[in-house]
């Protein structure tokens, strides 16, 4: 449905997108993860048509996305900003924004009512939006993007600044939209959001996709190991000394403090060897925890730990 090839965009010397390529199928929900400045918003802006000076091609439903203005009727966007009019009611906002698309007036009214029900704003549909809570505004923001039943929905960090309930509700809506056949690109910083919502995850940085696939595929791609946390009555130095000669390709000491140490292991079969070594040195072990690799560890592995502006 969507085919992006070699998309490149620079701001002066800063390359925001660097030969970015991506394919997206109908009904697929892609979670686009990346640190600040990775190029996520630039990508969304290009797809939305608000940035025009770039190179590369974007094909949507077999046609050049930017050559045919009518294709905009098939595209929906939920921006990071609360992009609607606070003085108007939720219903009036839906009718105005929906009216900008080629949706017949009668269908538009019906669709507005459906969406007000979906985002649970029907009871307050006539109220000025300025009276709404942050979560309600986010839900309205999402509803506006869905009004014309787009084939491709772009969501740019739609969950910023809302409470857990509103976030869960919004993620449910995104899942539902994908299940109904709309292709979705969903950018976020929140790794947990994409784990349960997206059928595919892409991690990008410096304008390029570093890895993509399901969570399991990503873990395999980066070869992430399991984390073993050991608590007990030992000194940091004694622990480090005990496991020193076990370290290698299959085992790595990540951290050691008095009473708590952390190791990465290729598989859990390494744990008995570690215990033997600790007991032989007289080091007491009170608790062992095994943590499976998370998206966060994959993300940090790929994008590094340095802070971004």
């Amino acid at each position, binding site marked *: 449905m969507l085919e992006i090839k070699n998309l490149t965009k620079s701001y002066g010397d800063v390359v925001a997108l660097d030969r970015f390529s991506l394919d997206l199928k109908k009904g697929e929900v892609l979670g686009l993860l990346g640190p600040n400045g990775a190029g996520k918003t630039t990508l969304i*802006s290009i797809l*939305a*048509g*608000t940035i*025009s000076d770039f190179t590369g091609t974007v094909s949507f439903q077999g046609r050049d996305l930017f050559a045919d*203005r*009518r294709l*905009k*009727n098939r*595209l*929906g*966007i939920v*921006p*990071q*900003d*609360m*992009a*609607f*009019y606070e*003085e*108007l009611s939720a219903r*009036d906002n839906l009718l*105005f*924004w929906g*009216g*900008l*698309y*080629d949706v017949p007036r009668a269908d538009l009214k019906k669709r507005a009512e459906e969406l007000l029900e979906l985002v649970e704003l029907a009871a307050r549909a006539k109220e*000025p939006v300025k009276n709404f809570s942050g979560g309600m505004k986010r839900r309205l923001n999402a509803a*506006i993007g869905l009004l014309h039943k787009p084939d491709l929905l772009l969501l740019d960090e739609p969950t910023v600044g809302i409470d857990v309930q509103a976030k869960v509700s919004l993620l449910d809506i995104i899942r539902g939209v994908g299940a109904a056949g709309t292709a979705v690109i969903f950018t976020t910083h929140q790794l947990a959001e994409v784990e349960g919502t997206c059928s595919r995850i892409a991690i990008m940085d410096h304008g390029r996709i570093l890895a993509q696939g399901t969570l399991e595929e990503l873990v395999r791609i980066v070869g992430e190991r399991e984390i073993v946390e050991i608590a007990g009555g030992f000194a940091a130095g004694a622990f480090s000394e005990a496991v020193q000669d076990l370290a290698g390709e299959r085992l790595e000491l990540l951290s050691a403090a008095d009473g708590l140490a952390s190791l990465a292991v290729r598989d859990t079969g390494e744990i008995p060897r570690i215990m033997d070594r600790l007991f032989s040195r007289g080091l007491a072990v009170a608790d062992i925890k095994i943590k499976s690799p998370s998206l966060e560890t994959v993300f940090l592995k790929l994008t590094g730990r340095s802070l971004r502006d």
Partner: protein
Amino acid sequence: MRRLFLVLGSDVRRHLKSPLAIVIFMAIPMVMTALIGIIFAPKAEQTTLPPIPVVLVDHDKSIASRLVLGAFDADQLKKMFEVTVADEAEGRRRMEKGRASAILIVPEKFTLDLLDGKTTTLTVVKNPAEQFLPDVVEEFVATMAVMLSGAIQAFEAEAKGIRVLLDSPVDLIPWETLGPEFGKAQKKVVAASKYLNPLLIGIKAEETRAPGAKPRFTRRDLFSIMLPGMAVMFLLFIVQTLMRDIISERGDGKLRRMMTTPLRPMELVGARLLGGWVMGLVVLLVMVAVGTLIFGAYWGNFGYFLLLGAAVSFWTAAFFGLFGALVRNRNQAGAFSAPIILAFSLFGGSMMNPEAMPKAFRAIGVATPNRWFIDGAALVRDGRFPLVPLLILLASGLVLAALAAPALRRRISV
């Protein structure tokens, strides 16, 4: 075009749902006009002063002092003065409390001195807290003194007779000898009464005008002259508030969202310029209606005035469209717009009569919409078609719109 009108309709609806800024900007010129009118306009309906409170202190208690008191009681003067007879201490107390504009003190033996032909003095104590009213009392007493002196001199012979009457016990008055004296006095009074009763020369207040001279300047005229200047100044404020949407929508993501829809940038630019124009004209007409209803302002031919209003609203929308394309953000717009509007208003004649402005001000004023609108409104008021102001506003407005449209389109597209 459907989308252009959809945006236009939404803009109008939004501003009507949240009209506080517009209402305030519309109310300010009305309040300012009302205040200026109340302070400076001539008050045609109020031509008389309230009665001036005077305390009469009568140490004489005789014929002449009764004459003085009676003079204040004459028909015309009754409306002018409110006389209370009291002692001097009470008079001063009243004066301190602001309940007396002056104290008139009639000295002892006032009547006797007059009849003897001696000089005597009436004292007027003026309230120092008042400026104008005590002077009226003083002037009146001075006039009365002149008249009384004249009367005493005219009736000198009779006065001597009366003096005798006053000094003698009633049983010793030689009534039989008074006949000729009264007869002489009666002849003088009858002769004078031909002229005095009734007065041969009446007083009638009437205003006359030389041919071609301007009619008397009324409060209504003042409002009619002031309101166009005020209205155009606040029209500028209102339209710049409306046109600020262009800037804020760029910052809050609405513009970006609009550009993801099939709405074309030029449709949005057109909607904004048209919106500013229509809203400006509506606001101007509301101000005109309010000015007419409240102040009775006179605008002249409504059709001509409507054309002029449409032209100045168009100019204003185009100007602030261009302004919106040039400034970086809402803060910058706020910082620059107020000084620009105030400068337009100062040099353009919204703040003072253009004829009273220095030449340099008037020269700068030709570059402002205020000046042309005010000039045009004056022509319409005089029953003439405001051709030159209309052409200048339309032509310069078109130039501004031609500059604004591509500049706005560029800002929207980035």
